[in-house]
Structures are given as C-alpha cells and as structure tokens.
C-alpha cells in the first residue's frame, strides 16, 4: 500500500482549509487577462512555496542551458533497459525501493539517490541477469565466440560488441581491458569460464556507466552541445523510458542526430514506436496524478459498488484518451471538452449509460453529464475523501496540474473547520468558511472550480442532490466570468492559454529530469517558445514533444571548469 503523501495531502486534512498569501493581488490580477490563466506565474509545479522551489540544486549559471545531474536509472528505466539490452522478460526492478519523486515525477535526476540498500537490489538483479544471459537460449546476445576455446580473446571480442550498447556510448580499450582482467582474476581463483564471464557481465551491469546516465564534464566552463550519444540517451529515455536502439545509436555515431533534420526525424520515428507508450504510462499517469488511483480507499459503507474492476475501468478510460493525445490523434484541449470516451461495460454501468457490450474499453459517445477529463471517474475518485467528494482538492488540482497556478501553502494553525451540521450542503459549508479573511483569498480561487464538480460524488457517480438539496454547480471565477455547468467550466479551461503552457512546463520537467528554473530567463524563453509551437499546432502533443527536444535546454548542457 502506498502512503497518502501526495501533493494534496495537506489539504486532505480539512476538505477545506484556510490559505494565507493568496493576496487580493494574486486573486484579482487576472482582470483583463485570461480568466484563470497564469502565463507569468511561478515555474515550479507542485504548490511549493519555500526557498529553493523551482531550483535544481545546480550552480549552473541562470543565463545558460543548465545541466542535469547524473541520473540513476529509475525502476521503470531499469526494467525497460535490461529488457532492450538483454531481451529478458524478468521484471527485476519491480521490487526495488520506489524512487523518490520531485515535482510529481519519479525521473527527476537530483531526487534519484543511491544507497547500499538500493545497490544490493541492483547486485541481486545483475546476478540473475548474468545467469540468464549465459543460458543457451540467450547466450548469443552477449557472447559471440567459443569462450572455453577463446578465453581472454573471446571475452574481449564479446565486450567490444556488448559494452558500447550497455553503456550507451563508445568505450575505450582500457575499459574493456579492465573487465577482461576481472575475468582472468576469477579464472585464476578457480572459477569456470561461465562463472568468470558471469562476473564480467555483473560488473558491466553495475558499473556507473550502466546504472547512471552520465554526461561527462569537459572541464571547460560554459554551454556546449551534447554529443550524439548523450543526446540519444536523453531522447530515448524521454520518449521510451529506455536505452537508445541501434538506429538511434547509429544516428549518434554518424553525426546526423546533431542536426535539426536528423533529430526531428528520430523524434518522429521514436514516437511512432510501441515503446513510446511509456509517455502515457510515465508522463501521462504522473502528470494527471492517476497513479494515486491505486491507493484510494473509498469507504465500502458509502461506496459499496467500488471494486478493482471499476478501478481498472476508470484508469483505462483516462489512459487511453491520453494515449490518443500523445499520439497526436486529438488536441490537448479535447481532453477537457470531448463528448466521447473509452468505456467498458463496468464503467458504463457506473456512468448510468447503456452497456457497450464489451469488457474492453470501447470508444463511444457519452451521455450529456459525461465527457472530458473533469468528469472522468478516475480523476474524481483520486480527488476525493474516502467518504465524500473533495471540492477543495479538485479545485486545487485544476489550478496546479492544468494551469500551473501555484497556491501558497496553508498558514500554520489552520482554524478548525466548522462542524458539519446535518443537512448542510457542501456549498454552504464552504461558503461559511470563505467568510474568514485568511481563507477567503485562496478559497475564492479553488472552491468555485471544485464545487462545479459536485454533481460527481467521491467515486465519480453522477448525482443531483446533496444533503437533501439540489446541487448547484454554477459559479463565478475571480475575474467575474460565470459558468452554469461543469461542461462550461471545462470549456473555459480548454481555452485558457495557461493550459498549454502548463502542460509544456510539466513535459519539460519530465523530459529533462529537472524542473525549469523559475529565475532563469534562458529556461523561460525555452518554455515560451515550446508553448508557442504547441499552441500553433492546435495543441498537438507530438509537436510539443518535438519543441521540447529541439530546445537548447534539451540539446545543450553547461559544463564547469576543471578543478
């Protein structure tokens, strides 16, 4: 069971809380601007507020492309990489300690630390992989000659082929020599040929050059273009969460990857590959906080119909829609405004619509109360308390995840929520709370968004009554814009220029493995340009992916002077 420590945890406390710092200035500054938008708001996702938020822990100059820390392969990347390298189907890293996340993503380099605990898992995995690789069926993928006859020469030949793949870069002769020496030492100690070569494979799979994505420092301070192999790794781990394949490595070797046309062609090729589904599984699910769906515990007394098959159907609806967006089949804004979706019989029952005649999610028209991300049961269930909906969480989620509008954290010594009197609606309870001046500024921003979704209960079932009174989803935003229905609100969000910019910001964090620096004009210019391309394309995600990769912040790094 995962913990409840997700970004909204502070707010789960109350269901409504008071927030300080949402000054009238912030709340009211949209006058004349986008209704919800935050084109100029802070860069840091995740609603932080303390010193260092939006930083990367790096001392690289703000006026340059910055750098990404040496990046340990995370759980997903390790599994995918050993699969692509060795053809193994062992999912060895699934039992590894989960990776720490930052800004909502588990691939932020600075948060991926190494300890003897983690290393001991990598060691066990390397032993299992080496054993499998030397089995008769797999042997040819790592060894190209007769080991018993060829001895050191065979080890050397095999490594010359294997090591550059494993380490994702050309290797030096002395790097091979040192591994051959390891073979010899083990042989001298009485190991069999296979045992000794197994040690060599283990060592190769535990070396820093395998376990980490390393961009070496040139020793000359300043920005430099990534070399082809560094760029190939950044690209393949962004789009595939795995190592470069032979063709991408070839493009790195012949220099074509470093040109715009070559890079652009590789982006298109990688996106068309099955492995690009990792963008949905890793970027999509984390951006939308969908992984939390695995950890929700709707109260069985209140939501007796909730079960794992419903949970699966909910997840599939959102993931399949995201996959269409990732593939460029639909615009991002469609995610908010669509009237169709992927529903199976279980979810159709939950939505009160006719069965679709399949246990597999089927693309179909939805009833008027459904359509769009904000009405999907997955998100509504993640953003709920075990026994009831959570309008404040929902409002905060829209602001943080869709619009990158970061609210300051609640002040200390939050006043207690007024006791929920029987027969009081959620809207009345929240309204009572907003009278408090310390609560009003932020809740004026969050509450109307969340209350617009009150027709959907804690597991996303449609309802029209709350505490004996009809639900009124209408609301007015802080700039005075009014809406009557959740669909109208979704339409407003879909048109908000903050939406594409926010998705771009999240995608940069994921793609780079670091957050954009809030105080860096260089990074901000990259975000502006990528957002512009994305918007110009009609919000097609592959165009945004391309814009991120083609940006200087992705293709360059800042080196430091040798010490």
């Amino acid at each position, binding site marked *: 069971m995962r*913990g409840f420590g997700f970004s909204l945890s502070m707010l789960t406390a109350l269901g409504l809380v008071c927030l300080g710092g949402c000054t009238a200035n912030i709340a009211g500054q949209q006058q004349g601007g986008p209704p919800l938008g935050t084109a100029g708001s802070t860069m*840091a996702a995740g609603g932080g507020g*303390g010193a260092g*938020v939006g930083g990367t822990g790096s001392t690289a100059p703000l006026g340059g492309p910055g750098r990404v820390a040496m990046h340990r392969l995370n759980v997903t990347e390790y599994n995918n990489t050993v699969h692509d390298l060795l053809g193994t189907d062992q999912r060895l890293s699934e039992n590894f300690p989960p990776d720490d996340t930052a800004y909502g993503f588990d691939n932020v380099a600075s948060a991926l630390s190494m300890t003897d605990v983690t290393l001991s898992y990598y060691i066990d995995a390397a032993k299992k992989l080496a054993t499998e690789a030397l089995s008769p069926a797999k042997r040819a993928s790592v060894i190209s000659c007769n080991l018993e006859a060829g001895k050191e020469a065979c080890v050397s030949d095999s490594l010359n082929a294997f090591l550059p793949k494993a380490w994702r870069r050309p290797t030096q002769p002395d790097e091979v020599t040192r591994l051959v020496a390891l073979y010899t030492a083990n042989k001298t100690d009485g190991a069999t040929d296979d045992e000794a070569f197994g040690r060599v494979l283990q060592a190769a799979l535990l*070396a820093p050059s395998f376990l980490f994505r390393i961009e070496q420092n040139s020793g000359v301070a300043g920005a430099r273009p990534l070399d082809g192999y560094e760029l190939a790794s950044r690209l393949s781990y962004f789009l595939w969460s795995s190592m470069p394949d032979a063709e991408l490595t070839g493009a790195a070797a012949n220099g074509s990857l470093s040109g715009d046309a070559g890079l652009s062609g590789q982006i298109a090729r990688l996106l068309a590959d099955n492995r690009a589904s990792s963008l949905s599984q890793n970027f999509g699910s984390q951006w939308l906080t969908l992984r939390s769906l695995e950890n929700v515990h709707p109260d069985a007394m209140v939501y007796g119909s909730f079960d794992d098959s419903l949970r699966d159907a909910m997840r599939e609806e959102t993931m399949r829609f995201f996959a269409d967006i990732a593939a460029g089949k639909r615009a991002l804004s469609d995610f908010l405004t669509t009237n169709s979706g992927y529903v199976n019989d279980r979810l159709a029952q939950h939505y009160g619509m006719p069965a679709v005649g399949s246990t597999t999610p089927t693309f179909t028209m939805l009833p008027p109360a459904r359509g769009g991300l904000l009405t999907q049961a997955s998100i509504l269930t993640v953003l709920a308390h075990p026994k009831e909906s959570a309008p404040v969480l929902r409002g905060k989620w829209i602001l943080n995840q869709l619009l990158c509008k970061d609210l300051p954290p609640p002040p200390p010594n939050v006043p207690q929520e007024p006791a929920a009197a029987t027969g009081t609606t959620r809207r009345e309870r929240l309204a009572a709370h907003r009278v408090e001046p310390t609560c009003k500024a932020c809740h004026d921003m969050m509450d109307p968004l969340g209350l617009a979704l009150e027709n959907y209960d804690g597991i996303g079932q449609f309802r029209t009554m709350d505490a004996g009174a009809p639900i009124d989803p209408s609301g007015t935003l802080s700039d005075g814009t009014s809406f009557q229905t959740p669909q109208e609100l979704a339409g407003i969000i879909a048109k908000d220029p903050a939406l594409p910019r926010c998705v771009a910001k999240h995608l940069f964090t994921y793609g780079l493995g670091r957050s954009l620096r809030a105080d860096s004009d260089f990074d901000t210019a990259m975000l502006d340009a990528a957002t512009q391309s994305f918007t110009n394309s009609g919000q097609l995600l592959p165009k945004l992916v391309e814009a991120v990769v083609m940006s200087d912040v992705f293709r360059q790094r800042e080196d430091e002077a040798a010490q």
Partner: protein
Amino acid sequence: MSRRSLGTSLGQRGFLSRRALLRGAGVTLALPFLESVAPRGLRAAPPSAPVRLMYWFIPNGILYDKWIPKTAGMLDPLAAPESLVPLADAGVLGDVNILSGVDNLCGYPETVGDHASGASAMLTCVPAKKVIEGVELGISVDQVAAATLGQLTPRPSLELGMAKSGGVGDCDSGYACAYAQTLSWNDKTTPRPKRTDPKDAWLWLLGTEDASLTVEQRERMRRGDKSVLDYLLNEATGLGPKLTSEDRVKLDQYLTSVRTVEKQLDSAAVPVECQSAKPPENSTDYIKRLGAMMDVMEFAYRCDLTRVVTFGLGNAFGPGPMPWIEIGDDYHSLTHRMTDPGVPEQVAKCILWEVQQIAAFLKRLKAMPEGDHNVLYNTAFFVSSDVGEGGPHNHDNMACLLAGNAGGAIATGRHIAYKPEDPNAKRLAAKRTAADRAAAIAIPNSNRLANVHLSLLQAAGVPATSFADSTGPIPGLLNT
C-alpha cells in the same frame, strides 16, 4: 539446541569474524561463551547478550489526555491512561518507560509542512532544508548505531515500513517527498530507502548464499563478489575527475554504497540453523503484511542478523483509512477535524490500535528467552511520531515511548516527566521561521529528543558522546 543456549551462544557469535566462523562451521555455535573473543572496552560490563535498538514511527501524533499518566513515577497497570491500556493488557507496561515533555523543536517547519519536517526530524533531530530538489537533513540515529553495532552482525541495519515511498508532488507544502517518507538517512543528503515487502526483507537478511554449498565454494563466491566490487570502486574512482562537482556528490553516494556492501561481505555469517527458515509471504492486506513484518523483525533479532531496526506503521500522513478497526476516513484527515462530533473518539481508536500493535510485538520479544533474561530486556525500543498532537501540529511534548532495559542499562515501568529549563525555546520555534527555530535550538534545554537518542545509543554500547543537537544524556533515564 535449546532456545536458551542458542540465545547465549548468539550473544557472542557476532563478535567472531565471518572467516573464523566459517572455518569452524557447525561447531562454533555450540561453544560456550568465549572471553577471548568478547569486545573489550565497548561496554562497562561484559555482555551476556547483544543489545539491540529498534525505532518505531507512528504517524499523526498522540492525544495527551489519553497517553500521558497524570503523575510522574511508577506506571500503575490498574490506572494506565486509555492509550496505554493495551500495554498493561499484554503484560508489558512494566517493561515500558513513558517520557513526557520531550521536545523535538527541530521538527518545526518553516511556516508549514509539519508532517514532512517532523517525520524527518524524528531520528535525525535536524531541521529539514525546505526544498523539493536538493534535500539536506542529517544522519539518523539508527545509522549512527549501525556504524558500530552493524559490524557485529550479518547486516548492519534493517529499515522496514508499511507504506512505500514514492508519491506525487511536493508531498508536504514545499518539503521534498523524501522527508515525509524516509526515517533513516545515511548522511546529510542521502535518504535510506526502506523495505516494504516482508518476504524480500527476510531473504535479504539471509543473504543469497546457498546453504548447500561447501565452505570452500562459499568462500570462492565471496571472493568473486569482492572482485566485482573492487572493480566497481576502481571504475567509479576513475570517473571522478570527468564529472562536475555536483555529480561527484552522486558518485560519492555510489562509492559509499559499494564500500558498505563490500564490508558486509566480511561480516558475520548467518547462523546455520537460521539459513533454512521459511520467509513469510508478502500481502496486499495491511494486517497480514504487518504480521509478516513483525515476523521479520523477530527473526532478525532471534538469529542476531542485525541489531538495528527502523519501522514505520506508515509514512507521514499515513496509514490512511483503517477499515480493520472501522475507521473509513483517512486517519490524518480525522486529526484535523477534532471539533467534529465523534472524531476525537475515532482518533483515540486509531492510537489505541497502534499501541496494541506495539504491545503485541513487545510481548513477542519478551517471550524469547535470552541469557538470564529475554530479548525485550536486551533491547532499547523507541516509539515516536512526526507531530506531538495531530491537530495542533506541535513539535514539543512528543510521543516518547521506550521499552526494554537495553541489557540492564535502563530501569523500566516509569513515567518520567520533563520540563524545559527555558520555556522560551518552544515559543520561539513555534513562530515557524528558520531563524526562530535556530534560536530555539540554541537554548540548551535538556528535555530534547536528541538527548533521548544519545542515551539509547550509550545504553546499547555505542561509544557516542553527542548526537545532533544533544546537550547530553537525558537526565534520569540511564541507570547510574
């Protein structure tokens, strides 16, 4: 071999080198206590049995009126506060000390983020740097202990938790997730992952050695493992000059990890009679998994596989709803709604359940004879939380439940009530700025949590004279 003689022999087994043990495999364990291999100068008196440390985390604090006895002095099983009744029922109240009035002012966040800052401060007594990337904290007390006690056992320490790390977003108001989810820290910048799968933890404790191999074969395996680690050290060291200073910090983490694993190759071997013990199964069911976790911890102590264990009943904010005691709401959320009718009773129920688990486990340790006493007697067991009470989010007057006699260093059955010499410290820290917190910590009050940690280290034979912001052993805890 009887349980008792096993325990006695295990007491000194850890002091033998792995090689010595392997040479005499199957014989060593039956030998009587050997004076010649006992460590000298580590403890005042020759140990009759190993002393262990165990650190338990319970999320969301306690309720003072249901936890703290009304008077200081001996605990009365017939008048135990409501939350402590399970200890009396399990017959272990006399093995417990309740410390009240112990402050951990380092746990105060800058403005907010109490659960992350408090959880990370529980075993470090260092204020967390408020960042999402680039965490800075300090070494945790269990790792200080492991540096000494860990040399005596097959594994230096064991970190377990009921909830996985990972999660979404900043986790707590600008504090990195690692603070909210990791109790144990290798050093200032390295959170130490916990194991959440009991079967996996059990197998790791045993090591990957195949019990059917001969001593000769195993020694060769060990040399092969070592050859790989030596290669990695060499390879990583050569990489250093080719990296930025920031990356060299990461490389240092790697080098330290390799060296630590290498040291474990030379550590004591798993006793033969423990090697074939069957591990418990993992389960998605919380209660079943908790039972399995207790099996693992008991196993670790029974076979002396490690003497330092950290365990969290959840992460900060955890453990979520507790349907097994009919708590359908998120426990953490409940602590924020203490004015709602019926909620204080539900929170009390959550805490009572936690103490029931502690009591059940203490009872198991007590039921294992060892030397002239039992394993609980030879343990220093520590329980605390991220916040004092869940509602106010204070970091003074923290939960501080100690159990076991640390091999005779601590008398139990007491409520020891502490007060700060200067009450201004907690008022300052509660202003929730970094500067006020630093000023508060600088006031040398003796009722600080770091002093409790220091006392327990000393009770367990760790030659520490200070820990974090300690001013000295907490008064009145250790036998003089």
